[in-house]
Every structure is written in structure tokens, then in C-alpha cells.
């Protein structure tokens, strides 16, 4: 067997494939070989341009770099593999020797079952392609590094050619390709058309009539530059650039997946706008979004920028396995990083080595591990509004000052408390108190369930005789430490009312005898909150985890929580006495756990609690499960066959003495009795601290003040809106190759690293996202600048130089102008990644000035316009079509930033919403609420992506749904109506003037007389319609919320509305000409 090959359809084919018979060259092939040798006289082939695309598309699927899933031992992705000895004297390729190269025989084989690629694979080679491969073998089968993996050249020379056409270096490259393609450039488009094009391309808005006129009359040398400078300096430019970036960043105002609730991520969008307003260098723009949280002394804005990494969907669907989706989110970040910055499709390598590009699974998981080191949950809370962690509470200067002030107050109150405790007066008062032979019961007891008395489902709570605790009878009474105890099923809770309602500044303690039946990963003793994963565990909980007592206070698990755990487990099958006490500090050091009266040694699991723990509610704002529960917890594991006795809760931090006493004494014994001799066994220190805690007014007062100082600060923190961002864990999470990409199939462990085919990770950088960002923005990085300039070229010219902007790998297209791409990229880097500089070059070029109507012969020669010998008639983006109508009608509200808005169209989306009233209807489209599962229908109709994943290109299509939107959508009808009213007033009813003005504003050019005539006829026809049906006129004028027309003749106004709407539907209103 030489090399075995599997057919595309999935069945294996083995065997020595080349019988002598198939070596007989069919005559047809001889002919082909002759032609092929004729071609060979031309310049040598380029591997990257001529051969790699064929090998990659037709062969790599089975003979590519995907070592793991390799269907054949024969590989074609490197020369070493391709020319290897396959045994028995067979070679896939013998350079320069067609006769000895099996590849040659196999691609020309007449026998279907032996021919490559297999006929049923859909990958057949054309004769041209076969000839190319033959010629390549004859030329020695040279290989070359894939173009996009080659370092960015240090410098690129622009072609020097005498030219009257070129305006800058960019044009020199383009003109060079005109020569080689034998095409000539299109004529310059009119000044109006250039202005319209550049205004939309840079700001997404049309030029105003005064702007058109100013430009037309500006005869200065710098007329064009002046316009570009004006546009680049405008806020509308920042909005336009942001709009484009939102697709890349898969921005959405909702969480996606099934429930798709709204989320508050627009502060990140506003950060993007601000970055473009400041013309932040692209390098910094990228690095901040990737790793702003890791910048030294990161500012709030820098952390906010990292929300970029969290804009993926978040699942809110009780029942999923959270780890599965945590892994999914890490994958999303990795894929977004790959597409947006590297132009590489990482997805393939998630399940197997990439079939086409040199990306292995190890590369994939090494890269993805950079994005895994945050405390996040795979499931977002249904029963709380807590923002998924890690989250940034967004503050402002004033709030920062208040927070600082309140923190100082807390520190002062804490010091005051210490002072009071240490003061000689306290000691004196203590002595006096002792002499008074105090008798003391258990102050602050909130609940005491002895489990001894049961009436049906009711259990007496000694503290609240009128409010019994409730437990179904399936939880059985069994003998306890004192009297009866309760044995829990694990599925049935005991609910205790009116107790344990503590916010995080509130100290409290609990005491209980427990007899676990076994050691399990989780067993819930008591808790308060909406449940486990579905509520992000918000609340507090006391669990046994593998038998270890564990106490937690949680806003959103795992990123905003405090948890301490005993180092040792308590025994199963025996009674143990547990006490947990907490001081209200929201810090792990404020928690103590006592086993049988003695403090347990604890470890801190989490110590980052900064937000409230008590706001359990459903999305419909219904409060849920807010009572204290014992023995069971919603969608968590209960205390299965565990027993409990003598549960008590206190609304204060109890002292060590009390903890000991709770273990040693029957619960109904008074804590301190008379006479004093009974207290002889007490340590004097214990008694003193107990005195301070419960009987000495000055300390009690100081404690209360400390608590209210904490409350004050906590309420401010609770009021701050938060946004999901990145916050690196102290230690990286162990990362593994996941077999088949499955979350639970861990393979080999990997460490953070960049793909092996790309430059090495810099030695002097930390192995985290910050290091990754530095690696990415290295001035010589082969991909970052190329990918960026290519995307912006696409934004300006409509199509990119590499027409697959999301794929710079071997399956992507080669650049139409490789030297230009490199020159632009190098120039961009050399100019400090300055976007203004980059865009200015493009829009001021002669290339950009061309008309969309090219030279006829050239158009025929280059129908796809690969040479850029004319401008492409680009359809305006969805946002621009709507913004254009708003802008010309004067309805556009040009506020910048802020919460998303709901224009009319949200009422017609899949999940209809009530539209805003007022300005929300008229904001620029980038502010329209983006719901992943029911995106704004107009955006979808005009080809905006769904924003489920990073998207670098919109595919303009034309469907019959589009005319319906512009003809019938209330946004457009209203704009036409308002515009009509303005023009009628302005021109005092002169129809021709109205038509000319509307035409001019909507298309940026004046109509010619024929056009005016046609529109005038339409005007008259519509007027007749409305004269015949006057009620229709009034109905039409009521569309939209804008004030109803005051124009004297509604029928004339209605007719104008229809005419203006028709102009909105004109080709030139929708397409850049």
C-alpha cells in the first residue's frame, strides 16, 4: 500500500493505486501536456498565487495539515511531505519529473475510482488547473510561505511611473495594475458625486446643500482636503466608524441565545465613539479592548474597553450545564480575536488540526487559554439582575469622591470601635457588670427551631410562636441530640419565615447540630436566595462541600462573592455542632466557623464581594424564594438524608464564648446565669468580649454606627450600573486540549501561547492578554496591520484588496494588489496606526475619484473590477439609508451616545416592542436597540449581520422586502411627509422647486428637466388621486408621531409626500454612484 486515500463521501479506499494500466497515458492527456509545456515558456509560476489556492481548496481537506484527522498518509501542505518517499518506489511529487510523480498520474487518471480528487467530492479539478499542477511539478515544485504569514516588509517601494493620473502612492500601485491588466481608469466622477460618496463613507450622512455648494464653488487647490478634514473632525465620523466596528465586535444590546434579555453594554459603545473622536491610534484601540484591565494603573475607561471580550451571547436557560457554555464563551472570544485581528478562522482547529492552515489543536487551545482566566459563569442568572462577572461598576468623579469619603468614615468608625473597647472605662464597666451578677439570655436570637414539636407541616419557632416554620411531612422526625431532629430528603425544604433577612453589611450568626449521611460535593444546610446557578447563587449559603463546612455571601458567582471553607471535613454519620458567625465586613476575615465549640481552620476561596446579595427577582420583577430555607435549595443539591437539630439564628456576630456555650449547653439554658460562680469555667477574656458585644452600650453603639457607615457605602455601590468586562484571575486557569472540542473531554494540558506558524510570543512580555496584545501590535506582525488596512479599504471602496477580509488563510483569496496592501500596512504602522492618515490617503486618491461607470472596454476586460479601474456602485448600508431620510427631512436628532433607542420598526420586529416617543424615533441608526433574536427588521432587510458572531463584511443583496420598507415603513413615510411640508413652505407650493430641492438633497445632485418632468407627472397623478379621495390625504399625513402638518392644502401635501418618498426609493438615493 502506498498512500491510502479516503473518498470525500466517507468510504475508505485502500490499495496500491497505480496499476500499470493507468500509467498508459491517454492521448487526450498527451495533448494537454503539450499545451502545458507551451505555457511553461512563460514566467515561472508563483506557488502562492497559482498553486496554493488549488491545493488548498481541492486537496488539503484530506492531504492538508490536519494531522489528527488525516484521511491519508500523504500530505501536500509542505514540500517535505509532498516529496517524501512513500515506499515501494512511489513518490507523490518528484520535483521536475512528471513521470515519477504520482500526483500527476492521479489527477489525470481516467478511472473514476482512482482519480483525485474523488469525483464524488465536488472538488473536481479543471483541465487548466491540472495543467498548472503539472507545470509546477516540472518547474521543480517550489513551495513558499503563505503570503499573509510573511512578516510585514520593513519598507515597500511604490512603483515609479510617469503619471498624470496618480495623486498619491496608493494610485501608483493601482495604476501599475491598470497597465498589466490592459485597462484604463474611469473618468473622474462629478464633484457632487465625490462629495456624496466621501460624506457617506466617512460619516454615514449625506452632504447638506450648503456643503455641496461650498465645495462646488471652492476653486482652491485644497478643496478636497478641506472637505476630508472637515468630515474626519466631525462627531458623525466617530459614529460611522463605530457603526462599522459594532459588526466586528458582534455588539448587541441583548444577551442572545434563547431568552435574549436586554443588557446594558452601551457604555462600551460610547467608549468606542470617544476613541474615534480622539482618533486613538488603532494599535491602542485594539490593545485596550483586548487587555485594558491589565494596563498598569488601568483607568476605568481602559477596563470598560475590555467589554469587547464579553459582547458574545450569554445563555439564560435553566437546565444547561454551565461549564459547557463557559467553554463556549472562551471559544467565542478566541474566534473573535482570530477573525477581527488575525483574519484567521480559528473555529476549525477547535475540533481537529486545521485542514487548510497551519493551525493545530494545540495552537488553538494555547491561544484560547489567554481568554479563559476570568471568573465567569456559563449561565446568567434568571432570578437576579446581577450583571455577569467579572463586571465593572461604572462610577464617575463625583461618586468616586463620595465612595472615598464613605470609606474613610468606615475606617474611622472601625477605629472608634477599637478605641471604645480598649478604653479603661470599658474595663471598669465590665467589673461593675460582673458584680451585678448579670443574667443573660440570648440577645438577638431571630429563629430557634428545636424540631421537637410538629403539627402537620408546622414546626414551632420559639422566637416567633405565631409564625411556624414549614416542612412537608416527607422530611421525617428522628431522634436528635435533644429530643427530635429532622431528617431531610434533600428534595424537600424547611422554610423559616421572618428570619435571616440580612444584607451584606449585617452581622449574623447561626448554630445547628448536623448529622450528614455522607460526604457529597455539595449539601445545602441553610441558605437564603433565589437558588444556585439560575440565580448566580445570589444570597448567602451554608453548605457542606465534601463534608467541609463552607459559608458564602454572593452577588454573582463566581466573580462577585466571598466564600470561606473549613480545611477539614466533619464526620458523616455522626452529630456535629456547627456555628457560623459573620461581622458584616463583606470580607473573608469577617467569617468564623466553629465545630463543637472550637474555631475551625478556614481557607479563603473568594474574597471579592462588592454588590448587594438580596435582589432576587425574575425578569418580570417578581421576587422569588426570599425566605430562609433549610435542607434543600432550588436547583442545588440538598441535605440528602442529613439530619438537623436545634437550628438557631442570631442577628449579630456572636462571641467565641457563645459559640462554645451553644455546643456545651442545652439550647434552652440561659447563656449567663446567676450566681457568678457558675461562670467560673469561663476564660476572663471571653467573658469580657462577650460583655462588649452584648452588654456595653458604647461598643454596641459604635458597632451600629460602623454598620450604618458600611450600609451607606454599600448602597452607593449597589446603585452603580455594572458592565461585564475582563478581570484576570490571579492564577491562570489550567487549560487543556478538548478532544473533539467537547467541553468535558479534556486532553493534554497546554499553556498560553500564540500559534506556532506566527511570530513567537515575546520573551519579555507576561503570558496574559496584555502580552498577547503587545504581540499582536508589534510593528512587524504579519497580520494585524494588513487585516486592518484591508478592512478599511473595504469600508471606503466597497470591496477589499483581500476579498475575504475574515480569512487571510490559505482558503482565503490572495490580495489583488499584494504590494499595495503591504505598502498601506507599513505606512499605517509608520504613521503611528493613524486612521485619519490611512483614510485620507484613500479618499483623496485618484482611484477613489473615479466614476462608477468605467471605460467600456475595460469593464468588459475586468468585469469584477479587480483592478479598481472604476468605483463600485455600493449600496448604502442599512443605517445610512435610514439616516439619510432622517437627515434630509430635518428629523435627525444628533445627540451622541447613551442608551439604545426604539424607533418605529421595533414594533414590527419578531418580538414586537413599544417604540419610543419623541427623540428616540429619530436618533442615528447605530443607536437602535439591537436584539440578537429579533433584530431591527429594517437593518436585517438591508443585510446587516445578526451579530451572533464577529462579522467583517456585509453582503449586499436585493430582495422585494427592501422596497416595502422604504415605501411603507412609517419612518420613511413620516420623513417624506415632514420633508414635504418643509419644502412646500419654503417654495410656497412651487412643485418644480419642491421636486428639485428634494432630489438635490436626497441624491446630492440636481435633476435634469426630463427627471423633473417625470416626477412632476407623478406629482399631478397623486394629486388627482387625493383630490378624488381627500380622506386618504389626511390619513397619509397622520403617519408617524411628528406633529401633523399645518400646510394649507393637505391633498397637495400628501401628493408631495408620495413624490418625495418615490425619490427616496430612487437608485441614486440608495446607491453610491
Amino acid at each position, binding site marked *: 500500500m502506498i498512500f491510502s486515500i479516503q473518498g*470525500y*463521501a466517507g468510504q475508505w479506499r485502500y490499495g496500491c493505486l497505480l496499476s500499470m494500466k493507468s500509467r498508459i497515458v491517454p492521448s487526450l492527456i498527451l495533448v494537454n501536456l503539450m499545451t502545458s509545456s507551451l505555457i511553461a515558456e512563460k514566467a515561472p509560476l508563483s506557488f502562492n498565487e497559482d498553486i496554493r489556492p488549488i491545493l488548498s481548496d481541492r486537496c488539503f481537506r484530506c492531504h492538508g495539515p490536519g494531522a489528527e484527522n488525516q484521511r491519508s498518509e500523504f500530505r501536500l501542505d509542505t514540500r517535505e511531505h509532498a516529496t517524501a518517499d512513500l515506499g515501494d518506489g512511489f513518490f507523490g511529487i518528484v520535483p521536475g519529473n512528471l513521470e515519477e510523480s504520482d500526483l500527476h498520474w492521479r489527477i489525470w487518471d481516467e478511472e473514476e475510482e482512482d482519480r483525485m480528487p474523488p469525483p*464524488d467530492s465536488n472538488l473536481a479539478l479543471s483541465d487548466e488547473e491540472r495543467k498548472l499542477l503539472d507545470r509546477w511539478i516540472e518547474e521543480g515544485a517550489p513551495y513558499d510561505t503563505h503570503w499573509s504569514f510573511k512578516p510585514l516588509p520593513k519598507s515597500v517601494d511604490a512603483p515609479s511611473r510617469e503619471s498624470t493620473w496618480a495623486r498619491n502612492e496608493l494610485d501608483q500601485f493601482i495604476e501599475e*495594475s491598470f497597465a*498589466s*491588466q490592459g485597462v484604463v481608469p474611469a473618468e473622474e466622477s462629478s464633484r457632487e458625486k465625490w462629495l456624496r460618496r466621501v460624506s457617506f463613507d466617512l460619516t454615514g450622512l449625506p452632504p447638506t446643500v450648503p456643503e455641496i455648494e461650498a465645495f462646488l464653488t471652492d476653486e482652491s487647490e485644497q478643496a478636497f482636503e478641506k472637505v476630508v478634514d472637515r468630515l474626519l473632525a466631525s462627531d458623525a465620523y466617530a459614529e460611522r466608524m463605530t457603526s462599522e466596528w459594532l459588526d466586528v465586535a458582534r455588539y448587541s444590546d441583548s444577551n442572545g*441565545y434563547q*431568552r435574549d434579555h436586554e443588557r446594558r453594554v452601551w457604555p462600551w459603545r460610547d467608549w468606542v465613539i470617544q476613541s474615534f473622536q480622539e482618533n486613538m491610534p488603532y494599535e491602542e484601540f485594539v490593545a485596550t479592548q483586548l487587555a485594558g484591565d491589565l494596563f498598569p494603573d488601568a483607568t476605568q475607561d481602559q477596563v470598560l474597553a475590555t467589554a469587547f471580550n464579553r459582547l458574545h*451571547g450569554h445563555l439564560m*436557560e435553566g*437546565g*444547561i*450545564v454551565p461549564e459547557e457554555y463557559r467553554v463556549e464563551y472562551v471559544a467565542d472570544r478566541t474566534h473573535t480575536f482570530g477573525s477581527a485581528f488575525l483574519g484567521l*478562522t480559528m473555529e*476549525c482547529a477547535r475540533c481537529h488540526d486545521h485542514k*487548510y*492552515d497551519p493551525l493545530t489543536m494545540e495552537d488553538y487551545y494555547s491561544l484560547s487559554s489567554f481568554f479563559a482566566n476570568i471568573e465567569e459563569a456559563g*449561565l446568567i442568572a434568571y432570578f437576579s439582575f446581577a450583571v455577569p462577572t467579572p463586571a465593572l461598576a461604572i462610577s464617575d468623579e463625583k461618586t468616586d469622591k463620595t465612595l472615598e469619603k464613605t470609606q474613610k468614615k468606615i475606617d474611622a468608625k472601625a477605629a472608634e470601635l477599637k478605641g471604645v473597647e480598649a478604653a479603661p472605662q470599658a474595663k471598669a464597666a465590665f467589673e461593675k457588670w460582673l458584680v451585678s451578677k448579670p443574667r443573660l439570655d440570648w440577645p438577638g436570637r431571630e429563629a430557634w427551631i428545636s424540631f421537637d414539636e410538629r403539627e402537620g407541616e408546622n414546626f414551632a419557632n420559639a422566637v416567633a410562636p405565631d409564625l411556624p416554620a414549614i416542612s412537608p411531612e416527607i422530611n421525617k422526625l428522628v431522634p436528635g441530640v435533644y429530643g427530635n431532629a429532622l431528617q431531610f430528603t*434533600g*428534595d424537600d425544604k424547611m422554610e423559616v419565615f421572618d428570619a435571616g433577612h440580612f444584607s451584606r453589611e449585617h452581622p449574623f450568626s447561626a448554630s445547628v447540630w448536623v448529622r450528614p449521611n455522607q460526604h457529597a460535593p455539595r449539601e445545602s444546610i441553610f441558605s437564603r436566595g433565589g437558588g444556585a*446557578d439560575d440565580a448566580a447563587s445570589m444570597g448567602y449559603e451554608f453548605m457542606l462541600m465534601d463534608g467541609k463546612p463552607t459559608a458564602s455571601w454572593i452577588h454573582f458567582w463566581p466573580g462577585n462573592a466571598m466564600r470561606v471553607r473549613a480545611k477539614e471535613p466533619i464526620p458523616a454519620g455522626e452529630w456535629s455542632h456547627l456555628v457560623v458567625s459573620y461581622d458584616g465586613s463583606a470580607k473573608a476575615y469577617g467569617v468564623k466557623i466553629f465545630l463543637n465549640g472550637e474555631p475551625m481552620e478556614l481557607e479563603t476561596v473568594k474574597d471579592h464581594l462588592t454588590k448587594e446579595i438580596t435582589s432576587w427577582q425574575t425578569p418580570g420583577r417578581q421576587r422569588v424564594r426570599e425566605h430562609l430555607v433549610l435542607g434543600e435549595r432550588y*436547583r442545588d443539591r440538598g441535605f*440528602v438524608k442529613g439530619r438537623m437539630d436545634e437550628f438557631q439564628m442570631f442577628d449579630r456576630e456572636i462571641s467565641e464564648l457563645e459559640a462554645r456555650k451553644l455546643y456545651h449547653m442545652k439550647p434552652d439554658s440561659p447563656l449567663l446565669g446567676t450566681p457568678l460562680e457558675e461562670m467560673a469555667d469561663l476564660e476572663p477574656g471571653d467573658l469580657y468580649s462577650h460583655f462588649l458585644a452584648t452588654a456595653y452600650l458604647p461598643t454596641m453603639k459604635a458597632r451600629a454606627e460602623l454598620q450604618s457607615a458600611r450600609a451607606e457605602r454599600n448602597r452607593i455601590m449597589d446603585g452603580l450600573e455594572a458592565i461585564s468586562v475582563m478581570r484576570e484571575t490571579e492564577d491562570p486557569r489550567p487549560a487543556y486540549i478538548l478532544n473533539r472540542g467537547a467541553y468535558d473531554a479534556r486532553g493534554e494540558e497546554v499553556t498560553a501561547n500564540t500559534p506556532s506558524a506566527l511570530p513567537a510570543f515575546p520573551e519579555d512580555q507576561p503570558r496574559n492578554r496584555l502580552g498577547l496584545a503587545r504581540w499582536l501590535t508589534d510593528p512587524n506582525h504579519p497580520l494585524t496591520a494588513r487585516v486592518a488596512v484591508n478592512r478599511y479599504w473595504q469600508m471606503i471602496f466597497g*470591496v477589499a484588496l483581500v476579498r475575504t477580509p475574515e480569512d487571510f*488563510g490559505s*482558503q482565503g483569496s490572495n490580495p*489583488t494588489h499584494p504590494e499595495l496592501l503591504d505598502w498601506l500596512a507599513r505606512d499605517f504602522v509608520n504613521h503611528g496606526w493613524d486612521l485619519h492618515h490611512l483614510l485620507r490617503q484613500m479618499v483623496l486618491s485618484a482611484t477613489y475619484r473615479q466614476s462608477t461607470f468605467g471605460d467600456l472596454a475595460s*469593464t468588459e476586460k475586468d468585469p*469584477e473590477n479587480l483592478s479598481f479601474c472604476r468605483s*463600485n*456602485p455600493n449600496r448604502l448600508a442599512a443605517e445610512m439609508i435610514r439616516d439619510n431620510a432622517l437627515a434630509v427631512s430635518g428629523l435627525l436628532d444628533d445627540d451622541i451616545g447613551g442608551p439604545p433607542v426604539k424607533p418605529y420598526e421595533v414594533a*414590527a420586529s*419578531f418580538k414586537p416592542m413599544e417604540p419610543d416617543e419623541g427623540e428616540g424615533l429619530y436618533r442615528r441608526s447605530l443607536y437602535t436597540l439591537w436584539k*440578537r433574536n429579533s433584530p431591527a427588521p429594517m437593518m*436585517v432587510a438591508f443585510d446587516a449581520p*445578526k451579530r*451572533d*458572531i464577529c462579522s467583517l463584511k456585509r*453582503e*449586499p443583496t*436585493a*430582495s*422585494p*422586502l427592501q*422596497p*416595502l*420598507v422604504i*415605501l*411603507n*415603513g412609517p419612518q420613511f413615510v413620516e420623513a417624506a411627509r415632514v420633508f414635504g411640508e418643509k419644502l412646500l413652505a419654503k417654495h410656497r407650493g412651487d412643485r418644480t422647486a419642491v421636486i428639485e430641492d428634494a432630489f438635490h438633497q436626497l441624491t446630492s445632485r440636481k435633476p435634469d428637466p426630463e*427627471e423633473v418632468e*417625470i416626477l412632476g407627472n407623478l406629482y399631478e397623478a397623486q394629486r388627482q*388621486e387625493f383630490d378624488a379621495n381627500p380622506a*386618504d*390625504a389626511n*390619513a397619509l*399625513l397622520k403617519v408617524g408621531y411628528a406633529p401633523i402638518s399645518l400646510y394649507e392644502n393637505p391633498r397637495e401635501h400628501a401628493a408631495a409626500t*408620495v413624490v418625495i418618498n418615490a425619490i427616496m*426609493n*430612487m437608485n441614486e438615493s440608495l446607491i453610491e454612484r
Partner: protein
Amino acid sequence: MKNPLCTGYESPFGMSRRSFLNQLGMGLGGLALGSMVNPLKAVTDRGPALSGTHFPGTAKRIIYLFQSGGPSQMDLFDYKPRLNQEHGEELPDSVRRGQRLTGMSTSQASFPLAGTPFEFKQHGESGAWFSETLPHMTSIADKMCFVKTMYTEAINHGPGVTMMMSGSQIPGRPTVGSWLSYGLGSPNENLPSYIVLTPKVQKGQPLTSRYWGSGFLPGRHDGVRFRPEKDAVLYLNNPDGVSRLSRRKTIDHLKELHEYQVSKQSDPVLESQIEQYEMAFRMQTSVPEVSDIRGESKATLKLYGDDVAEPGTFAANCLLARRLAEREVPFVQVFHMGWDAHSDCPGNVRSNSEKTDQASAALIKDLESRGMLDDTLVIWGGEFGRTNYCQGKITETNFGRDHHPRCFTIWMAGGGVNPGYTHGVTDDYCYNIEADGVHVHDFHATMMHLLGIDHERLTYKYQGRHFRLTDVHGHVVKELLA
């Protein structure tokens, strides 16, 4: 500079639309095969991806009655008396085999088995089992082809429905209808090729528009939802005060204007737009016409049941699906919602059966009486099944059931499937598959086969990869073919 290989990004503006059409030797009629005819894009797409089918198919169109939420297989079709015998007893570990459960019941301390409260009987010559909740379906027993051994990896609704619709649990892939629209185009130039009908009253697990999304295929392959409202399609109706005549005049003048502009400067983009506007105008008539059931006979209406008069009910949507099928719409997706029986499973099964039983059976009979059943494939099923054990509290008569991906039942009828046939066997506990499991990918492969498409050969190149509906899996289940 050469023409790179097969990447599908050719400029739409390279040649005059007419010269393009002439080159392909087809006029507008031929081009209109492209679904939702897209004059701009049609030039780039060269019409449907396939010219005809790979081989003669037995079905020309599909009506997919999707039962969202996960119908309880053992309370409807997959009769398991053993569950009744062991009602209340613990699910044996030997059956569960440590397989993962959803986060909703995984922490339960016990997993008591729950038998069905419904009576089961065999019907038809095939002897298919039906629960008493499905009296109407029994009458089409011998038309139905059951798969009792469907399975999926998804254990929750979002991922589960996404898997059934697109062959992947993760959002972003094209759905079945989009693949067909891309591959076959539409024989009707006035209606979209992929139409989605959703319930007017939406209760239960939410639907999302992604379930009929085109993923990475061009947006025009998105399913078009017909809404049971005034505007069946987005902004279908003229604004208040604009009559049909008035609109006709606008379109005419716009056309005149564009033709004038073309006369000055030949321009394929403009020519395309003229056609685009004509088609929009035609759709304004064809869509209301298809939704108007006033011409249906009393007998037909009666067949579907009382609900049929109420737009947006399952019955009304089934009838509308038949009307769309008559107009050669190749893929109609009807959603029913509500099978998610976590608690009160008996009540859930009873009420959802009532809502779907009669109309489902009616659709089959109606298609048959019109001679359309032979080439119309009807599919009935959800995203997964339900557990044999009780979620929550079990009593003698009541219980809930959690999601169960390891086996569930769907049925098909017409379009060349094997009538009166039941495929696959589940174990006595209705927990695992004993023989002949059919994975979602196999189901998709079979569905495409019925249409004459080789699922391995309908591909779309995206991000450097040739994608297909069945990913790299799927086998045609030959036994399901007549």
C-alpha cells in the same frame, strides 16, 4: 491578477444584467428561480446553487410541523408498560449509566419512574401505538412513518432547536429551509421559498428568529415569517391613505425615471432595481391572497377543526401551510409551542394534543385528497424527548418530566417516506436506544435525500471551509424511504 477560485464574491456590476442573462441562456423566468428573486444578487449567485437536483427526489416540498418544547414520547407514541408497572420506583443506575442530566433535575435526590396515565391502543394495519390523547392521528396511522429512535446531544431548548434547525447547537449556521432555498431556489416568483408560521399566542419556551435564520448564507435565504397580523410580511401594506392605484402609479413613474436614466447610461444595477420593485408590488397582492381562506370549502375548514378560523392557531397555520404548498413554496415551517412538561406532564400532553392532533391529521388528509401528499413531505416532531423519571414531586396521578435527548419520537408522512412503518426500538424504560438510532444529522440527510439532494454535495464555502447542513456527519436512513 487572476480570478481566484470559487469564492463567490464576484462583483454584481461587472456586466449588464441582460447580457448576463443572455450568457446563461435564460430570461427573467429562469432567473426568478432564485428565491425571493434578488436581482442584484442573482447576478452574482448564478441562480440556485444546484441546477436541478442531484437525483430525482420523491418530495418537491416540505411542511415541517415543529413541536417546540419536546413532546413526551412515552405519553404519545412510544408505549412502555414497564414504566407503569414500576411507577414511583427509582430509575435504575443500570439504565441511566451515569449520563448527564439537565441542571434542573441533576441535583434531585431521587429519580422516580413515571408511567403514562394515558391509555394506549394500536391502530391501522401497521398496528402503530397511539395514546388516547391523539384520536385524530389514529385515522392516518397507515400514512405515517415513525422514527422512535431520534437522538441529539442537546439537552436544552435553545441548543436543541438550533440543532434540529441547523445541524449545530451553536448559533450561526444556516437552517434547513435556508439550505433548500440556497440549493433549489423557488418555483414561485411571487412568494418567498422559505416561509415560517408561528403561533399568535406564544406560550412556552420562546422562539427566536435564529431558528429560521440563514446563518452565513446570504440574507435572502432567511425564512420569511408570515405573521397572523395585518402586515403578514414586514411593511407589506401601503401606508394609510395610499391606495393600490396610487402605489401602482408610483412604481410606474419610478420605473419611467429609472428607464430614462438607463437610456442615458446603460446600467445593470438600475435594471435590477426596476425588477426588484415590480416583484415587491406583486408580493403585495400574492401574500394577502394566499392568507385569505375565505374560498376554502366548509368541509375543508371542518376537517381542520374550529381553531382554523382563528389566525395564528396551529390549525390555521396548517391550512395556510397547505395553501403555500399548493403555490409551490418548497419549505414551510410551522411552529407549535408548549410541549415543555416539567410539571403536570399529563395536563401538558392533554392540552397540546388537543391543539395539534386534529389539524396535523387534517393536513395529511387534505394533501392526500388534493393529490399532493405524494410529493409533499410532512414532518412532525420536536427538539428532544422527555425523561422517564419524574422531575419534581411525583404522585399517583401527576408528575413532571425533564428534557431527554437520548431517544425521542418523530413522524413523517408523504413525500416518499415509507408509510405505516416504525423505525427503531427504545429500551423498556424509554431511556436508551436499543436498535437503529437516528441522529439529527441522519434525519437531515434523509430529508434532503427525499428532495433529491445528496447532503454531502450541497455545500457553501464560508471562512475557507465547505460547509454543509450535516457538517461532516449524517447517513441517509434507507429504511425510511418508500
